[in-house]
């Protein structure tokens, strides 16, 4: 066989973007995305049951199944769904965007098998009722050994994918398959992969000894040390999500509006800040733990976290600013916000990503930094304020951004078109809106002290009676309603994706159908085709709209932050 025929079979050229899609890598993008969506469904069903149980007038499940579902929901959403999808992103960003084949198909198969077996084993043992320990599995709480083993297998698989990713970057560099510096989206994916390695090593340090303890082969690890190490996994893996999510923001911003990153050096610098500084943010889970000094807590949350916060704020400026520039170059110059109204809101990929950025910044970001303050954490630790925060980051932010990417993956990688496009257009609003409502319900109920991970908010049947203000119960109802709306949005997403992938009209040999008018799409295509060399010329285009948005953001941030300090001053004195 001549090398030419081998090459011809190895990749196809994408009709929409002109990028080379390597068929072996494409298989792994597809299979990881499909598995991700399956585990999303499992976690989503658990989510609905939980929302309907915390809604204190409904209380659907009994106590045993409530705690089991919290465990199932946490593990499937935070680990299996998100990491499988991120694996798809790593395969995509390292091969297609760099125009190279992947390093090793064998490694890819091995990692896939490990991850799949790990995920199935863990789900099996949870549903069997032998691992009601929550995602965090804090010792001395003990699960069946298979619970830890499943997660360890999954993590090893993910580490192998990360290795395959770095090796692919290396061969791309060596074979000079791309010109200039690495594309920003790949750079962001590489950031995610580096953080993933650090996170997974922490996870191994926490979970391997715990697995050995559950087998009876080792003494139990100190619970405080476990928390420190576990959060090295638990929080760092959220930084993987953030880095991957921001990469998706940049990718979809370009695809849907033709936007180019305003200043690549600044964007790359912001990604590097994530790697350098965000790792220590795990400390903010331990702010009211015994055994750690205030100096340690304050240092590790402020020195480290605020520079990483700065990085997120930089992305939060450059992404909308690059879109504003693109829109103004298309001629939408009316007023401060004329460009904003004309953004491609009819494109679900775009609207998902835009909502993701807004929810992540305004709700997730502001609450996260505030709750991560040592003293304010006294009013927040383990209350519903915490899930109120992270559902806005990891669901309203990351999951919604990944849904947005899926609206591009299906036509570009699976080469299938969607049915029911009108419903697709409202799906991001339904899901994002539901999450916002649920997240606000959680946050406000949490300000009354309503605990997370607790079956009965009123502690009915306890020897010493207690209970919450009726207003807190209204917010629990808001939580429930938001959860139901978000679940409908999730179900709609799954129906649209499954219908398109398995039964959708084929797009082989065609361009991806546009969600916009042909005229709009033509302008977007022109901007994309101009390439990066034009980028420098954009600096003179002003972005007054984005500046106003940023000012509104900083103002809301400051108000929320100082309101929390004011509330703190009313508590009993403690030190």
């Amino acid at each position, binding site marked *: 066989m001549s090398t030419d025929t081998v090459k011809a079979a190895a990749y196809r050229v994408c009709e929409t973007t002109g990028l080379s899609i390597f068929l072996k890598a494409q298989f792994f993008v597809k299979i990881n995305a499909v598995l991700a969506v399956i585990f999303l469904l499992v976690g989503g069903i658990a989510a609905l049951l939980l929302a309907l149980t915390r809604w204190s007038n409904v209380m659907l499940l009994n*106590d*045993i199944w409530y705690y089991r579902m*919290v465990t199932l929901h946490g593990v499937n959403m935070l680990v299996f769904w998100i990491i499988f999808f991120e694996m798809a992103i790593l395969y995509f960003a390292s091969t297609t965007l760099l125009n190279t084949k992947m390093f090793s198909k064998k490694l890819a198969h091995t990692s896939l098998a490990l991850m799949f077996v790990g995920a199935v084993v863990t789900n099996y043992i949870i549903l069997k009722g032998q691992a*009601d320990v*929550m995602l965090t599995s*804090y010792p*001395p*709480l003990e699960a069946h050994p298979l619970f830890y083993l499943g997660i360890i297998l999954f993590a090893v698989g993910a580490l192998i994918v990360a290795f395959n990713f770095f090796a692919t970057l290396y061969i791309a560099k060596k074979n000079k398959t791309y010109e200039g510096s690495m594309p920003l989206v790949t750079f962001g994916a590489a950031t995610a992969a580096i953080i993933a390695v650090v996170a997974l090593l922490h996870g191994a340090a926490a979970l391997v000894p715990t697995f050995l303890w559950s087998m009876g082969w080792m003494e139990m690890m*100190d*619970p*405080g040390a476990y*928390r420190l190490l576990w959060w090295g996994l638990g929080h760092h893996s959220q930084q993987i999500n953030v880095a991957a999510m921001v990469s998706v923001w940049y990718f979809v911003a370009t695809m849907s509006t033709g936007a180019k990153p305003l200043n690549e050096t600044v964007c790359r610098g912001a990604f590097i800040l994530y790697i350098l500084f965000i790792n220590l943010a795990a400390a903010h889970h331990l*702010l*009211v*733990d*015994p*055994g750690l*000094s205030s100096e340690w*807590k*304050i240092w590790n949350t*402020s*020195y480290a976290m*605020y520079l990483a916060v*700065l990085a997120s*704020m930089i992305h939060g*400026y450059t992404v909308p600013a690059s879109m504003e520039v693109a829109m103004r170059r298309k001629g939408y110059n009316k007023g401060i916000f004329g460009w904003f109204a004309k953004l491609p809101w009819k494109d679900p990929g775009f609207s998902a990503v835009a909502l993701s950025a807004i929810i992540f910044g305004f709700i997730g970001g502001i609450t996260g930094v505030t709750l991560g*303050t*040592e*003293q304010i*954490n*006294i*009013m927040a*630790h*383990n*209350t519903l304020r915490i899930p109120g925060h992270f559902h806005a980051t990891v669901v309203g932010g990351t999951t919604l951004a990944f849904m947005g990417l899926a609206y591009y993956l299906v036509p570009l990688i699976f080469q299938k078109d969607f049915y029911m496009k009108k419903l697709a257009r409202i799906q991001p609003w339904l899901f994002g809106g539901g999450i916002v409502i649920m997240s606000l319900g959680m946050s406000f109920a949490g300000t*009354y*002290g309503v*605990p*997370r*991970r*607790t*079956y009965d908010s009123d*502690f*009915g*049947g*306890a*020897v*010493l009676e*207690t*209970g*919450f203000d009726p207003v807190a119960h209204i917010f629990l109802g808001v939580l429930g309603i938001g959860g139901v709306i978000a679940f409908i949005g999730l179900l709609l997403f799954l129906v649209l994706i499954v219908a398109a992938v398995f039964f959708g009209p084929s797009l082989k040999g065609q361009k991806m159908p546009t969600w916009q008018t042909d005229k709009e799409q033509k302008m977007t295509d022109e901007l994309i085709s101009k390439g990066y060399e034009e980028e420098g010329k954009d600096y003179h285009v002003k972005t007054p709209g984005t500046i106003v948005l*940023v000012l509104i953001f*900083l103002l809301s941030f*400051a108000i929320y932050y100082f309101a929390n*300090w004011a509330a*703190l001053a009313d*508590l*009993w*004195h*403690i030190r």
Partner: protein
Amino acid sequence: MGLALAWCLVMSITMPWWHFQGKQNAPQTTYEVEPEAFIQRVHQFVETNQVGEMNNVPIVEPEPGGDAYLLGQMWRWYPVLKLKKDQTYRIHVSSADLQHGLSIIPINMNIHVLPGYDYVMEITPTTSGEFSLICNEFCGIGHHLMTGKIIVEE
């Protein structure tokens, strides 16, 4: 970007500033303790200072300015503490078994409780009345039954 950086600096300074000037900070004092030894101390504390009973749980009144003990176990906070408003107490908190979360309701103050760690809260109640303690870290199937009380007198 300059504005964002300035805001980050403001936040970075606020935290240490409050550490020295503020009245509410995360407790810092921790001692190592075996769960059995801690349980012994709690029982001794109850024997010497008991002043009453609430639903069969002893009510215990420590000396103002003195030490008090609070045990988290599956599934109760033990015993009921009776404190005086505006007096400072050193409340030792630890767990007999799993990890627990101590939450004072409705004022909403929360700390984490680990077995093997004696965490000392130097606390000054500034309001009076009956307050509930709940557990906010999952500790097994009876987690939502784990409560306690603090009574604060004028």
